[in-house]
């Protein structure tokens, strides 16, 4: 079902990261694995990552998209820090998406601080992959336009 659709040259790179201190890594690992099976190049950070660690991994690996997983309810606090960090380093061209235990009432706030997509519980793997692919494509197109 989840067959690769892209050749190596066009392969997009995604960082899947656990921001904050919650240890619920089931979702992050499933997403990392699914994205890999959909043909992405995936880097998974493991749990308990700070914004600094995530940003440095994203820059070092030159990723196209950052996917954050948080299930502790502290998503707004942590995402604000992450987005501030990205902006201060001029790395806010990397699109950021998030998934986890996020109440629908928080989606607007997350969008406002610059999160490109919020995946709520029950989201399909295929749609996550589609959205991530679109965002990655958009980032590369902007780069080549500038470049």
């Amino acid at each position: 079902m989840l067959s690769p659709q892209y050749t190596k040259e066009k392969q997009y790179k995604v960082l899947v990261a656990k921001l904050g201190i919650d240890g619920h890594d089931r979702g992050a690992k499933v997403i990392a694995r699914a994205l890999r099976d959909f043909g992405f190049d995936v880097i998974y950070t493991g749990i308990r990552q700070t914004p600094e660690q995530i940003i440095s991994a994203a820059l070092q690996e030159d990723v196209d998209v950052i996917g954050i997983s948080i299930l502790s309810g502290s998503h707004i606090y942590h995402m604000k820090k992450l987005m501030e960090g990205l902006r201060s380093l001029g790395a806010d061209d990397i699109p950021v998406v998030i998934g986890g235990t996020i109440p629908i009432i928080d989606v607007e706030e997350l969008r406002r601080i610059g999160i490109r997509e919020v995946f709520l519980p029950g989201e399909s793997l295929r749609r996550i992959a589609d959205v991530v692919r679109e965002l990655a494509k958009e980032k590369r197109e902007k780069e080549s336009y500038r470049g």
Partner: protein
Amino acid sequence: MTYLYDKRSINEIKDSLERWEKEVLPVWLDRVPERSEGFTTLSDIPVKRLYTPYDIQDFDYNKKLGFPGTHPYTRGIHATMYRARLWTMRMFSGFGGPEETNKRLKFLIEHGETGLSLAFDYPTLLGIDPDDSMAQGEVGIVGVSVPTIEDMKIMFSGINMGEVTTNMTINPPAPVLLSFYVGTAEEQGVDYSRIGGTTQNDPLKEFIAQKSYVFPPEPAVRVGMDLIEWSVKNLPKWNPISISGYHIREAGSTAVQELAFTIADGIEYVRQLISRGLDVDDFASRLSFFWDSHINFFEEIAKFRAARRMWATIMKEWFNAKKSRSMWMRFHTQTAGVSLTAQQPWNNIIRTAIEAMAAVLGGTQSLHTNSFDEPFRVPSEFAAKIALRTQQIIAYESGIADTIDPLAGSYYVEWLTDEIENRAWDYIDRIERLGGMLEAVKKGYPQREVTEASYTYQRYVEEKKKYIVGVNIFEDREIDEIRNVPLLEYNQEEIERRQKERISKIRASRNLERWERSLSELRKAAEKDINIMPYILEAAKARATLGEIMNTLKEVFGTYVEPPIY
């Protein structure tokens, strides 16, 4: 031998079954084909169309079931089960600071809860103080913040610790939280002999699933065993460990893996304690377990029954336990958090009710029922009350609790109980060959198995091989239903500020000499392989904070970083 069926009856049943399959069934299948080519349980065990005595033809009643309160305890650990005393209705709760949680505990007691169960926030679970940089934005969210003995005192003000029993879901910092609890009970004038409750204190499953590990596997196990050894000698009513399958299951394992890995954890702990020179009968009766009750009704019931039988066998035959209590698998159950959906959230009330019924039919000693709003946040009072009422309806209205183990003898349930048991034994054999669970965990074996199972399941959901109402079948476009769920509201920033303020006041007002001495004595004990519990108790009383105690231990034991495998 107490066979249920003689050979002649079995042969006759087999003949008539074959006749039915040949003459009756095809006509029906022709008219309306079955809904699926093959049915399986949630754990992928194939489920046949029909079970008959033929499926349990060699069933030896006394050997497999016996009677309630007798070996192998398949039918229940007590001779009277719920006819005498209902299970403990123990709602996992905690949020904000000790003040908020104290209010919630009193609310639940007032509405008929019969035991307490504390959920801690992430900083507490990891043993860091609210003013630690890693704790920022996390204080009081997924549970209550309890960084000092003073917080524990506030949380239990107006609650008699000699009368309630309290479960604490806490692992690496379990000795610290137990010390806060014992210290608070002492101040209430409660004798050690009356302090009752449970510390989860199950280090191995932290590496397999829950992932709130702090120390590397070996010192983590040592800390856990120190607590158990101290507790069995000092707190006769305390359950020093709750060997937990729950988190393994929630992380995506199958029912069989949950059962096998948890029992393998238990085997490791028993060996560790025996190697310390303890007699198995001096501690085994204090070991308790914790299971998930998922949505596949019969699979869960079979799992609970198989669990009791396996543990009794292990304790008797592997470890030569003599006392019957040493062979009892006493357990707490929680309905499956992962089965709840954010879509059409009110449906979660129904899911929880089904899962709670399975737990009761499986003979649980205590039960937590999830609230329907938990896909979003820690439950509101309103939602928690419905969850508690669900248990009360099962207990007082349904009649489910009025006869013992009513599903015994069901061809399907007995077949499935055997099947789950056999599959679990295979896993346990594999783990034994790896050198036991501590070694298996160090090699990443159960971690990989769980990761694999969770991905398989997610693919089934994606492919609609497994259905979730509201998620991949009977979906609604309407989201007002979700928007209108009344969520618990509290000011997290204010709570974080208050918790920081309290801890700095405590740091400023304590006896520095006693505080410093307690921590340096603790460090020496940790380095020398002396049981650390008495030293942690002294440090807690000397107003050392959770973070300070844990940091002292981290300096000796180091910390664990998991390789990021997916």
